[in-house]
Structure formats: C-alpha cells, structure tokens
C-alpha cells in the first residue's frame, strides 16, 4: 500500500491552471487512496494544510490561492518539491453494482469529485455532475467531467453560466430529467451547501455521502480541533459522512 507517514518530498510534474485562482498540481508519486480522502501538504517554513485528493496516481491536488500556504504553492514551478503525507481520513464508497451516481460539487469541492467520477466510470457506473459556483469565473473542471462522458449541470449564483441559483436548486430538476434516476448522491463543498443537500427531500430516498469541512490541525485524530456534531472527528471519522453528522450520528 502506497502511503506516506512522514512528509515526503515529491517533484511537481504538472501545473494546470483551472481558473483565475485555482491550479491543479500533479506530483511524481502515487498513493493507495479512496476519493474523498485527504493529504497534508507542506512547504518547509509554512503550516501544513489538508487537501482532498484530486487524483492518487499520480497524486494531484487542485488548490485555490487563498492563504499564505496556497499562495506559496501557486509560486512553485515544474520540478520544485511539494511535501505530502497521507492519505488520511475515510473517503467515499462506490456501490458494488453498476448504478447512476449524482455528484454535487460547490466551489473547490469539485476537485475530489473528479477523482470519484474517474473511479466511478472505471467501475462501470454512470456519473452525472452538478457544479455550482458564485459566477462563471469560479466554475471548476466542467470540461474534465464532460471528457469522462458525464452529463454536467452548471449553477451560478449570479446566473452568468448555467442555471441561476445554487446546486440545490438543480437537484430536483436533475433527478426528474436523468434516466435512470440516480440512486446515489455524493457531495463536496462548503458546510452550508452540504446541509442544504442533506435536507433535500430526495436525499431521504437515496444513498448519501458528504465530504465535510472543518478546521484541522493534527489531521490524525488527537487534537480535537476538527470535532463536528456530538464528538465526531472530521479527520478520522470523516471527512466523508453518510449524512450531516450534526443531525445523524455516524454509524
């Protein structure tokens, strides 16, 4: 099993701009990992930070420049080192039999769902994708999902691309239009979006998996920083939960 306990220096082999603030970094290394699992990425002199895997072979991370660490990452060039440890946490599970999967990504939450979609398509599942963002400039990775043969629905809050509104505004329409009706729903995005997805009437009748976000420090279940709900650790019990862990205690 390919896993890095210690931060491992990996050369950057690819840098792909995804939009004005986001790049996908490919690294010279692979991990045995499930989509939804995360790694702690590190640059000496900076804090290490959790990132969901956008791919495991090769390791790839889709990162928006939003803080000191991610801005430093955006200054890296091909051949530079990025340090990675992981994979950590529990990821998404795919159904055993071929099914129609509905993936819902908000903002940067789209990245791990591309990893999930690739795995899903390779395993014979049909994959439909809802991508939501504030505006067309913030949309991520839609062509990559289309290249997999997935049907993609877009929503933007300002209506500059796709349906105006939020991802939840598209769910009932997609469920009505998509044939066969999707049986499994996977979501990744801001906490408010996940809560709204879990509260959808349709979610009650479908298998649901949500990748939760929380403030992480140690990343390995000891410090308690990422507690969510009644004593659940996002880094160890999650980040993927079967429901809103605040409302429904994980099994």
């Amino acid at each position, binding site marked *: 099993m390919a896993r890095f306990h*210690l*931060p491992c*220096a990996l050369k950057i082999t690819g840098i792909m701009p995804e939009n004005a603030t986001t790049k996908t970094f490919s690294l010279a290394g692979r991990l045995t990992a499930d989509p939804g699992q995360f790694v702690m990425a590190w640059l*000496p002199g900076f804090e290490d930070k959790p990132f969901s895997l956008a791919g495991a072979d090769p390791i790839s991370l889709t990162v928006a420049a939003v803080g000191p660490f991610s801005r430093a990452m955006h200054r890296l060039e091909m051949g530079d080192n990025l340090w990675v440890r992981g994979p950590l946490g529990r990821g998404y599970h795919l159904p055993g039999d071929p099914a129609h999967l509905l993936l819902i990504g908000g903002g940067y939450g789209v990245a791990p769902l591309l990893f999930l979609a690739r795995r899903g398509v390779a395993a014979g599942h049909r994959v439909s994708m809802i991508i939501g963002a504030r505006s067309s400039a913030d949309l991520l990775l839609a062509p990559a999902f289309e290249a997999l043969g997935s049907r993609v629905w877009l929503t933007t809050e300002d209506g500059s691309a796709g349906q105006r509104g939020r991802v939840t505004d598209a769910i009932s329409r997609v469920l009505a239009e998509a044939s066969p009706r999707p049986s499994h729903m996977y979501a990744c995005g801001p906490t408010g979006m996940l809560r709204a997805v879990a509260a959808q009437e349709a979610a009650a009748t479908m298998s649901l998996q949500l990748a939760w976000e929380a403030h992480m*420090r140690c990343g390995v279940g*000891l410090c308690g*920083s990422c507690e969510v709900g009644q*004593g659940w650790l996002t880094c160890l019990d999650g980040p993927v939960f079967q429901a809103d862990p605040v409302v429904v205690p994980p099994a």
Partner: protein
Amino acid sequence: MNNPFLECEFLDFSLRTPLVLASGIIGTSATLMVRAAQNGAGMVTAKSCGPGPREGHPNPVVVDFEGGLLNAIGLTNPGAEAEAGLLTETRQQLRPLHVPLIASIFAGTVAEFAQVARVVASSEPDLIEVNISCPNVGDEFGTPFAGTCDSAAAVTAAVKGAVAGPIAVKLAPNVPDIARIAAAVVEAGADAITAINTMPGMAIEPVSGRPILSNRVGGISGPALKPIALRCVYEIAQAVPAPIIGTGGVCTGQDAAEMLMAGASVVGVGSAIYYRGVSALGQIAQELAEFMEAQGLSTISQLRGRSHRQER
C-alpha cells in the same frame, strides 16, 4: 463496556475498566470525552489548561515517524476559567456512565499552579492531574518542574494546599532518577502519580534539512515510548506506595497488561487513538479481558505489580 474482569478500584473510585483517556488526546469537549467513555475508558482526562487561553503552535504539530508519534501541539487551551465550564458540563455528562473526570493543569510558576488548580477545582473534577512535564513549551515556561525533586515537590505542595480533592502529578521520563522525583511528590502530598509524559524528540525532513514540527522539537509517544514508560512505572512502583496511572505507548490489551504488571494501578491510553481510532479504548479493554481469561486471571489486582513478584 461492562466486563467484570475489568472492574477495578483506583483511589476512592470504582472503575468499569482500568483504561484512562490520557491528557491531550481528544479531551477538548464534553462530547468527545463522553465518546471516549462510551468506548471503554474507565476514567477520562481533559486536555491540560493553564492560566489563560493559548492557541498552541502552528502546524505541523504531529509527525508519525513510524516508531511512534512526535507531537508539539503547544498546550492549546481556553484558559482555566473557560475550562472550568467545560469540566462542569463534562462531569455532568459522564456521571450517568460512572466514569470519573480528571482535570489537567499546567502553569508557569508555583503560585500560578495553585491559582489554576483553585479555578479548576470549582468545577469539582474527580481528580486533578498536575502536568509539570509538558516538553513542548520550554521557551515560555523554562525547564519543566518535573526536572528536580525540589521543583516537583514545590508545585505538588502548592496545588495540594489549594484544593480539597485528590491530585495526581504527571512526571517526565527524561530525568536521571524518576523514582526519587516520585518519592518527593508523594512526600509533598500527591495522592497518585501519572507516569509518564512524552519523551522529548525531533524529526528532520532530510530533503529540506528542516525540523518537521514548527516547534522544532516535540514529545515522543506511541510504541517507541512503551519500554521507557514500563521502566519508569516499574521503578516508581518500587519506590512509592501511591497508585500510578501508567501511560506511554499502550496500544493493545497486552500492552495494558504489561503496564499493570510493571506496577500501574490503571493505564493511560493516548496515541492508540491515532493507530486504531476512538474505538481503540474498547478494543484494548476487550483484548485485556481476553488476555486475562487466557492466562487464568480474573481480576485487575492479580495483574498489578506482577513483574515485581517474579523471582529471577
């Protein structure tokens, strides 16, 4: 977790299991401590609190160096006043589970230790653990008080004089003679000893040449700490009659049995939660009961100090 094999006494408490959630491990909220209790902890220890709030060190704060873990969280805590509220809530939630709550305190001076103890005692924890041995804040707090008999005894006496309930003093492994320190704190009024805190260590990332932890150095826990802890507990048990919370690298039921045999009355569990998840407590308890059954032992007291009774 109700197994008659595992029921035992510690100070005035009747415990369901001899396992204690160690300080600094998920002891940050009532809900997490209740979860530890539901999973098999006989007692739970809250994360150490000091006089005022502390954010702790920046990331990275933990390294898995394969022989164990190295951490320098940096005593993240909300301060004694806020901690007292958390302890009150936690104790109320633990009461129906019959799991005693241990508060943990640290401070920078002897007088501050007494002051923090008084604030924390207002929440009526079942036991106060006096952390005189955190290795990760040396720049701010000087040499840990656990380093000499005099400083360890001075803190112990000050805390004991400040509170009515029982206290345990948590000792450091990196001293020339831990048994002498233990004797000094018991002489100064400690009701129990917690042994041991983590062992100072370092991890360097070879490609960059940098220490991995932002604090540069940290405390070693997990499997690498176990033989050190067994030796310390063994020597303390020879020197003092006070009960010992034996802590360091216990990850399996057999590890727990060994710690009891070295002379511990109960067994702290910390890093095992990294290796096995929060259910580690229940798994260790189950394994300990199975080990006892296989060995024809039916009470924890038969394990306690067993290594001291073996002839060469």
